[in-house]
């Protein structure tokens, strides 16, 4: 019975798969940053895709080196990234809402209207800064459109 598996090779292949899929997620998230129509959707795509990509790349590294010290460090890095990334996304998103960055015209804002009225942001969001300042970016979707009508 000559069935000795080359564990070195198995580990290398596994780490390759992890690292390549992590890099792929990051690449796709970056393409999403260019393709998606508005600020909030873009941010959803980029923060999560890159967080998962980072986690996968680090796991691939830990599998490649196969040492407890490195595994521990990798796990700690992943844990801290996963704690802090959504906080940053939340803060940026909230600031964007309070500064009146417009939503995509197809966004369903029915349940959000109350909040906007309360914080006197409705006028700001409705006046549609995208069309005034950068009309070119939205032409694919027929312009930023009538957000006020949807709201």
């Amino acid at each position, binding site marked *: 019975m000559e069935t000795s598996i080359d564990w070195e090779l198995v580990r290398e292949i596994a780490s390759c798969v992890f690292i390549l899929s992590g890099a792929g997620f990051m690449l796709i998230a970056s393409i999403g940053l260019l393709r998606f129509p508005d600020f909030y959707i873009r941010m959803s795509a980029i923060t999560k895709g890159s967080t998962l990509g980072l986690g996968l790349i680090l796991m691939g590294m830990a599998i490649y080196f196969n040492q407890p010290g490195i595994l521990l460090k990798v796990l700690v890095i992943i844990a801290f990234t996963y704690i802090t990334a*959504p906080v940053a996304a939340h803060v940026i998103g909230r600031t964007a809402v309070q500064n009146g960055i417009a939503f995509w015209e197809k966004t369903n804002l029915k*349940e959000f209207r109350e*909040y906007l009225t309360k914080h006197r942001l409705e006028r700001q969001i409705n006046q549609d800064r995208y069309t005034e300042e950068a009309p070119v970016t939205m032409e694919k979707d027929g312009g930023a459109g009538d957000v006020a009508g949807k709201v």
Partner: protein
Amino acid sequence: MRLLLIHTILAAFVAYFAFQHPITSGVPYTAISATLLFAAVMGTLWLSTYFYRRTYFRKLPKLLYFILFFIKELLVANLKIAYDIITPRFRIQPTVMAFPLTVKTDLEISLLANLLGLTPGTLSIDVSEDRTTLYVHTLYLKHGNLESLKQHIKNGYERRILELTA
């Protein structure tokens, strides 16, 4: 919570120093063997809590199950959004929903908001001042229905968080 921390540090120390001892000189010191030893020590300590800390004994499996559930959610949602990016047409239906909170304390609310912020497609925007509503920007609706998405968050995340912190 404190017990979990103490057990983790203890198990990590055991997993580290056991391999310095001459008894284990035949065992290779790799990530796999260290992880197995760590898991074994944690398991033994967990079994011992059956006699003096029953709540911890019940909660640790739930915590592990929650972590697995969360990883599954993360991967599925990431693949969904990746598929949407690389195919020409968008299937997103962005919505800002007002999610009625049943969790009350600061820790639970921030935990829920953070977990929602990590799952792709959802982004927590703000909590209302009376702490009854969480405003969440979401890209995908479940079965094209806002209510079933809310039910999913309620049963998937909120109930488990309540079970863990209660």
